[in-house]
């Protein structure tokens, strides 16, 4: 750590007593503090959404059955969450199940995965990587955090008042008719609407920052690939989110004032809702995955200490994915469109595979003959490559009309999107979290236990979701609490896997807490990275850099650049590997 840090103090330095500190953080416009506030808010929502997922898996351990015994009395077995006064009625228990999976889906999509990487890691790292002092609009950045919290509070209130049973997609007419007291659904929908504003403002801020605040000497192709991916995601956030905004607003009008737009009972068109919904929600899955891919590009290059293969191809693939993302939404509605439209959307869907495969092949080419530091971030990168490839490839049979006819709305779909969303985005987030943890908090974490946690999550993940491919291809539909006996073994393996994932994240939680409490002080550049965030101190000082940095080399020019503030003793690769595999 360089000396001047002691004079200025890091962004984490307390400004006074408890209330002064609270006020300092609550009114801060520092992108680093806002990023960390996002990180903790998102991890909290991840915990709530995760608990809902555990409850769903717990319910599915046994199928719901009604039996009539010899005396003619009816019994229900296998209902984990039925209310005490339900008697022999299975509906109240099923109602709770519907609310649990809606809660899980809505929280994980709108409050966790969409903002996860851009709003937390992106906020912290984007200005640092560009060599800027802050994002373009710091106050707007803080506002978007408060909007995020407000939207989340709306959703939590809706859950607290009894939950919503529409599924996270809010399809009409479920969302316009279920629950006679409509406030819960309206609150939940309004919550998602408000969260959209937060997303738009974050995306807008990042796009302007990338255009206007790059350090002197940094051209577009000198930017780290994480910046490219957050930039592409930002464009999607700006251009897709308003459409879900108007959709949810109209849905709220419809719910509260009974205006007919989407509800067929009022003359509306439910398929129009689906088109509007997926016109946003399909591009937004790339808001979820693109920043994860960006993390993989950066972490992989630094931990392999090798120039990334095909820099421009990866950068353009990010933009390509962003472009294609807007023309494939129809594949969510193959059963409600004409045959011609189905064929067009199916063909367009396959286009997504091209830029995605470009990235995966480039990552693998980068791994080839490099000196891989097998630490926790790198383990997560490898986990990402493995899981995301499975997730990506199982998307192809879902985009193919003939196979989708069999697989749609089954557990195959559930497994596919968990492999890309959790196996992709969340694993990317974990890779990034470990990679930049020393930068965020100035402390190293326990490498051994972090790797044990990562492997536990990996095993649990595959137990949970690989089984669901079998369930889905054998015909198990989504969103049911009951199933035929033949499926029980798969469901039980899946549920056990969910508990293993939980154990893995628990290990990570302890590793992080232990790091904050007892961790070794982190050097400014523990991994030998070349991008500008490693020029700053760990943790960075309040205005990021003591002097405005000047960019004189590419982000991954490991062959001919000495990493800044780099002490080879910190670099976790043995000396012989380091020299042998430089080329």
């Amino acid at each position, binding site marked *: 750590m360089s000396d001047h840090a002691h004079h200025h103090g890091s962004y984490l330095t307390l400004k006074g007593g408890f209330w002064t500190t609270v006020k300092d953080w609550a009114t801060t416009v520092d992108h680093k503090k806002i990023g960390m506030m996002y990180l903790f808010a998102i991890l909290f929502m991840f915990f709530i959404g995760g608990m809902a997922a555990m409850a769903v898996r717990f319910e599915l351990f046994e199928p719901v059955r009604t039996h009539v015994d010899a005396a003619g009395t009816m019994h229900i077995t296998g209902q984990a969450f039925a209310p005490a006064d339900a008697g022999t009625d299975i509906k109240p228990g099923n109602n709770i199940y519907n609310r649990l999976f809606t809660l899980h889906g809505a929280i994980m999509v709108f409050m966790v995965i969409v903002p996860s990487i851009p709003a937390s890691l992106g906020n912290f790292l984007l200005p640092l990587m560009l060599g800027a002092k802050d994002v373009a609009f710091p106050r707007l950045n803080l506002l978007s955090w408060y909007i995020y919290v407000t939207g989340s509070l709306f959703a939590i209130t809706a859950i607290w008042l009894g939950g919503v049973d529409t599924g996270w997609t809010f399809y009409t007419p479920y969302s316009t008719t279920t629950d006679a007291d409509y406030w819960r659904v309206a609150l939940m929908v309004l919550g998602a609407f408000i969260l959209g504003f937060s997303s738009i403002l974050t995306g807008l801020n990042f796009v302007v920052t990338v255009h206007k605040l790059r350090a002197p000497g940094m051209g577009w192709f000198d930017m780290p690939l994480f910046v490219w991916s957050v930039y592409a995601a930002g464009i999607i956030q700006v251009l897709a989110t308003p459409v879900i905004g*108007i959709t949810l607003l109209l849905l709220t009008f419809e719910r509260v004032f009974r205006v007919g737009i989407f509800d067929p009972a009022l003359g509306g068109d439910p398929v129009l809702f689906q088109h509007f919904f997926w016109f946003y929600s399909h591009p937004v899955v790339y808001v979820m995955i693109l920043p994860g891919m960006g993390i993989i590009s950066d972490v992989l290059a630094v931990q392999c200490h090798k120039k990334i293969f095909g820099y421009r191809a990866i950068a353009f693939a990010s933009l390509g994915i962003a472009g294609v993302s807007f023309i494939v939404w129809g594949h969510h509605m193959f059963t409600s469109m004409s045959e011609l439209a189905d064929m067009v959307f199916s063909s367009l869907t396959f286009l997504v595979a091209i830029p995605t495969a470009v990235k995966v092949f480039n990552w693998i080419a980068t791994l080839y003959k490099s000196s891989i530091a097998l630490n926790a971030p790198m383990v997560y990168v490898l986990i990402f490559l493995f899981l995301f490839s499975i997730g990506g490839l199982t998307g192809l049979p879902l985009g193919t009309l003939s196979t989708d006819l069999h697989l749609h709305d089954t557990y195959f779909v559930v497994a596919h999107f968990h492999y890309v969303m959790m196996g992709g985005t969340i694993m990317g987030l974990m890779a990034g979290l470990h990679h930049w943890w020393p930068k965020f908090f100035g402390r190293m974490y326990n490498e051994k236990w972090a790797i044990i946690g990562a492997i536990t999550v990996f095993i649990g993940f595959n137990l949970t979701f690989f089984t669901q491919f079998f369930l889905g291809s054998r015909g198990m539909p989504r969103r049911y609490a009951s199933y035929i006996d033949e499926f029980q073994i798969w469901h039980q393996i899946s549920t056990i896997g969910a508990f293993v994932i939980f154990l893995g994240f628990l290990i990570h939680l302890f590793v992080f807490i232990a790091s904050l409490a007892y961790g070794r002080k982190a050097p400014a550049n523990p991994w030998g990275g070349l991008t500008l965030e490693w020029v700053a101190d760990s943790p960075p000082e309040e205005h990021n850099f003591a002097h405005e940095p000047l960019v004189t080399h590419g982000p991954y020019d490991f062959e001919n650049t000495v990493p800044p503030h780099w002490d080879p003793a910190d670099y976790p690769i043995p000396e012989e590997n380091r020299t042998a595999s430089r080329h």
Partner: protein
Amino acid sequence: MTTIDTRELGNRPHWQRYMPGHHWRSAAEEFDACKFGFWLFLSTEVLLFGGIFCAYFIFRTLYPAAYHEGSSALDWRWGGLNTIVLLVSSYTMAASIYCVQTAQFSRAKVNLIITLICGLAFLFIKLTFEYTPKWSGYFFVLDPALSHHAGTIVQGKTALWGMFQFVEGYGGKRPGSLFDYPFAEAAQMPMWWSVYYCGTAIHALHVVIGMVLIARVLWRTHRGYYGPTHYTMVEVTGLYWHLVDLIWIFLFPLLYLIH
């Protein structure tokens, strides 16, 4: 070495003392970024209204008769008047930006006040002559004979110094399940009213937001915050107001002038 007289600096208007945010290299860069960011924001507004226009075209294709009937129940004169009102306000808004840029602050304020009055007039016309009568089932008309719907003229009840006469006897044209329109000649008439009310209400909400922004700019212009070297908020407020105007330019013919 030049010394700066801090007393003199303190007496200068705010815009002369303006310093860009600490993370900008110059005020010009900050201005460029703000303008670029605002254009991005305007693109989100266009996409937001895009949803309404998309619903409009789909339902119009599906139910042309309902749209024909629904549109004929609107009086194009009120819509036309509101179009003129907004066009005038757009001119005065643009003029106020020019005046701030050239340090003609009194003129800038007059233009901003006219813009605000136009916004108020738009909302007044919308509420008094369009929403309320449709909702409650009465009507104000310039010349009852011009109206193609029969109704009873209530003698002595007029609006705007007797220019408009009060006609009773229409069913209210309400949206959704509140829809209660006894003269519906086409099924799916409620769909027309849904789009009409949602589209114009969300537009009216934007008019209100625009007026709040303009009022803020007016107050801050009065306090000397903006001038030839610093007028970012005046400029972006103007951009916003022009967009609000532009959306009405599309809504007006689509709602009032179709056959």
